[in-house]
């Protein structure tokens, strides 16, 4: 083996290392570069108001992406997160009459229920994650529209609206929630048996089974967590928009979340979860869109740029994986 490594030209070896570095830290470098570019070319970029707006907009994406990162860590995917947001926003106004707490709990339970269905299909029936979650990707929004009677409803409850618009020590509440969840999810991944087991299962399911890990229970739980986090994001988004619109809330959210996770350096074939990378991935995409919008470029261009970023991330992951 050593002789073979020696025979490989040094440049190729360096390329693999460069790609591995890119997978791990490329996203941070890209954010730094983008911020510098914006400082140079975008007027009023470095204002407090602009930063607040950017962070408030990205918070729900970050929260959903955490659930997605955990699922992808098990070598799965959760396509239903956008529909969960729709279901949550449809449920909340129905129960607002009982008070904010019951309404939010009902919204979150909707996410848990979707997660239970997804997780059961994946863990116990053995359906492929992409197919299992596709069912509620399609059906979840349908259910949400039926629940809401197909209507956009304004939300007037002040306590709920405060969730979206009030601040804690000058930091908008959705951002605070995302920041707290960042710490929590990092702790879950690093310090809990659940976190250890889910990356092990994603890394090698057979070995995990032979090592006596409760594979099915972990898989079930991971989809429940993903559903719950999507519901949290749905609640915050409802509060911020001051309306319940199940036909549009969370549309394409699954793609944003997958992009954030992959760009953040979590490999699609599981075995690893990068929490801070996921935050950075979501921030990067937010910055790209904001930059292009500020300079009056069409949304379609933002989408193309997003595509290029995804391809770059996947390319880096492939090269790094070949080490």
């Amino acid at each position, binding site marked *: 083996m050593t002789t073979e490594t020696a025979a490989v030209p040094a440049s190729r070896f360096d390329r693999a290392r460069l790609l591995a570095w890119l997978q791990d830290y490329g996203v941070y470098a890209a954010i730094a570069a983008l911020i510098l570019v914006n400082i140079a070319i975008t007027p009023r970029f470095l204002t407090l108001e602009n930063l607040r707006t950017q962070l408030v907009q990205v918070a729900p994406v970050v929260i959903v992406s955490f659930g997605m990162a955990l699922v992808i860590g098990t070598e799965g995917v959760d396509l239903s997160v956008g529909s969960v947001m729709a279901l949550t926003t449809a449920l909340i106004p129905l129960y607002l009459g009982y008070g904010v707490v019951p309404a939010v709990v009902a919204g979150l339970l909707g996410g848990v229920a979707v997660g239970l269905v997804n997780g059961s299909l994946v863990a116990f029936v053995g359906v492929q994650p992409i197919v299992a979650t596709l069912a509620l990707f399609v059906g979840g929004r349908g259910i949400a529209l039926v629940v809401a009677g197909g209507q956009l409803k304004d939300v007037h409850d002040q306590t709920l609206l405060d969730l979206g618009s009030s601040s804690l020590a000058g930091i908008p509440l959705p951002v605070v929630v995302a920041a707290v969840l960042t710490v929590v999810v990092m702790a879950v991944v690093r310090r809990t048996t659940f976190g250890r087991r889910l990356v092990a299962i994603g890394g090698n399911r057979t070995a995990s089974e032979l090592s*006596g890990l409760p594979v099915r229970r972990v898989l079930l739980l991971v989809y429940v967590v993903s559903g719950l986090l999507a519901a949290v994001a749905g609640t915050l988004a409802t509060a911020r928009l001051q309306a319940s619109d199940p036909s549009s809330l969370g549309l394409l959210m699954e793609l944003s979340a997958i992009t954030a996770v992959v760009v953040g350096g979590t490999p699609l074939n599981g*075995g690893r979860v990068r929490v801070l990378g996921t935050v950075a991935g979501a921030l990067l995409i937010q910055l790209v869109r904001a930059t292009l919008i500020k300079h009056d470029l069409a949304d379609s261009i933002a989408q193309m740029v997003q595509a290029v970023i995804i391809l770059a991330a996947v390319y880096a992951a492939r090269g790094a994986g070949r080490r």
Partner: protein
Amino acid sequence: MSVPDEEGPLLEVSGVVKRFTGVLALDRVSLELAPGEVHALVGENGAGKSTLIKVITGVYRPDEGTMRLAGRPAEFAGPLEAQRAGIQAVHQEIGLVPALSVARNLLLGREPRRRFGTLDVGRMHREAGEILASYGIDVDVRRPLRSLGVGVQQMVALARAVSVDARVVVMDEPTSSLEPREVETLFGVVRRLRERAVSVIYVSHRLDELYRICDGVTVLRDGRVVHQGPLAELDRLRLVSLMLGRPVADVRQGGVTRFSGGHDAARETPVVEASGLTRRHVLDDVSVAIRPGEVVGLGGLLGAGRTETAKAIAGALPLDGGRVTVAGTPLRRGSAAAAIRAGVALLPEDRKAEGVIGTLSVRENIALAALPRLSRAGLVSEARIDRIVDTFMRRLRIKAAGPHQRVAELSGGNQQKVLLARWLATEPKILLLDEPTRGIDVGAKAEVQALIDELAEDGLGVLLISADLEELVEGSDRVVVLKDGAVVGELSGGDLTEERVMTTIADAGGGTP
């Protein structure tokens, strides 16, 4: 029809070399197949059998060497070309369409048609019935294939393969999922093929079958032909010793391995008792008991059921019958977690696919199975993990840049030690070691062997599976010999020699009546 025009071999493979990324899989292998000859191809894991088959059936192109079919040079760009030339393979995976009827499957792609291209169902059923009847297979051709047993499905696949003008048929472990009655039918088909001068390459580990049906034999080991000739002139013991790579005359007494041997455990009560382990086509009433401080070896050829026995004890193989008790308590069947809690540890055969988790660090790989005892209320205790990881990395002398190095970057021997550490961290009562020294370097091998010894002396029960006969005999206090999924003998004390293991395998009556 398919008889070659001139005398001479039907298939001639000469000097075939095949390399995979520098590893020599086939080293100048030659093979001649006379028309109508049934030729046994045998060898243990990694001998090169499947590579040779893939070269013959056009899946791989040889790096060197040539093939001739009926005297003409044969060079196949892919399996389809090989099939067109008349080389058919029947694999364990059947490769037919389960939802279609037997007749459709049999005639797939060449169904009889009426004038306007519609299917002539009546004629199709008649023809299919005739083909199957000519091989002595009695089945309703209108039934969907999936409604039939695996054995009959395999027969249909075989009939399909040979009815399309086959000249050479490769059968890879054709009887592994057949009932005894179906095996007889298969042999009937093989005899008919022989009468029609179709040659057969027959891959199997079941000695009785080989001696019943095969004319010639080629024994492969480490990619080389170690024996070739008529099977009738090769006695069973020689064949077994050739496959295992241990010349009968050259069995050394003691020596290279690092086992001290002789653990005094005879009087203790068994820590593990497996009785009547049964799984269709795999295990047939296997019973093994292991006492604390004892190393019990499992002997036998490839496919004899050694790995399956270990997996069954560890709760990792669904069983049709049998029970496992650990320290007197019966284990819940089919639960690896329950077995681990009771103190059973299985070091699996395939280190990469079933053992290490390559994306994780050495540390996390070691802690994996012992997580329940290294955590409280779902929270992992980093300090306890650090302690355990440190202890085992030192005790097993795991060579890594540090506990946080990714396990995929370690050498095979060190990966194996990481897995051993994973299991020792669970404080097991019994260690099931499936090929613990395969594919690791000599130094690590000696260390692992010494460790097995040491663990047994500490009172652990050990089940040792090894294709290395010397390792098996010197490492074990007792060897249970398996054949075709059943226990055929037990050797200990003065009887425990490499030669006796081989004679036990060779002399045992087959499972097929």
